[in-house]
């Protein structure tokens, strides 16, 4: 599991690489939260293009970050979600509050 942090303009992009489960969730949380403390931006895009597996623990990680950035009036979205993961997104109700885009460019455009 790796989290690749990059910036595009005023937006933090968190590229999740590997398997996102309960075991790796803690690392992802800490990595993004510590980056957000340093960063001037409060806008976050999760890049899921390199997520090879995710269970419902991933939903908890996304919702947790969404709550944090919302408190700071920031925005959060997710890009590049494969169909298998999309099923978990759908059943969790996450799509009602968090926008999902086909790619990073679309996510940035709508930030």
């Amino acid at each position: 599991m790796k989290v690749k942090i990059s910036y595009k303009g005023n937006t933090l992009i968190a590229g999740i690489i590997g398997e996102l489960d309960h075991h790796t969730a803690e690392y992802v949380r800490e990595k993004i939260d510590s980056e957000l403390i340093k960063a001037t931006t409060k806008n976050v895009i999760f890049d899921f293009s390199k997520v090879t597996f995710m269970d419902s623990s991933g939903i908890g990680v996304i919702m947790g970050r969404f709550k944090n950035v919302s408190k700071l009036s920031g925005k959060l979205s997710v890009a590049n979600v494969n169909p298998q993961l999309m099923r978990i997104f759908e059943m969790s109700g996450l799509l009602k509050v968090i926008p999902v885009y086909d790619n990073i460019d679309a996510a940035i455009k709508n930030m």
Partner: protein
Amino acid sequence: MQPINYMKLEFSSKSSNEGFARVVAAAFVSQVDPTIEEMADVKTAVSEAVTNAIIHGYEKSSGLVKMECILYSDGVEITVEDEGQGIPDVNLARQPMYTSKPDMERSGMGFTVMESFMDRVEVISEVGKGTKVTMYKKFKSLSKG
């Protein structure tokens, strides 16, 4: 339908074994050659069941998680069992979004994911004794007729 293969695995209730257990289950069912999507469904459901055993069953203590797989030519039955604290109200625990650990950023979707990705999920639990989750899935890509 006669079982064609069987396996049993026991491992410590460490979170690093969540990945181990789901990969073992996927490798075992791959013998009958289900689709990639069907294998991903099994992996996800096993991951949810094993995670529940580790974070809810054993919580701060530790113990052994047992996984059994019975393989059929066109499906699988998987049991994940712990000897942890048990679930006081199984019906409540199975409700979507219900979590006994809201502070842990858990989504409360574990059982819902298992039910969606498998055809049938049975939960037997006794407080102080443990929990046994049995999941069935038919590989529709392999069923005849």
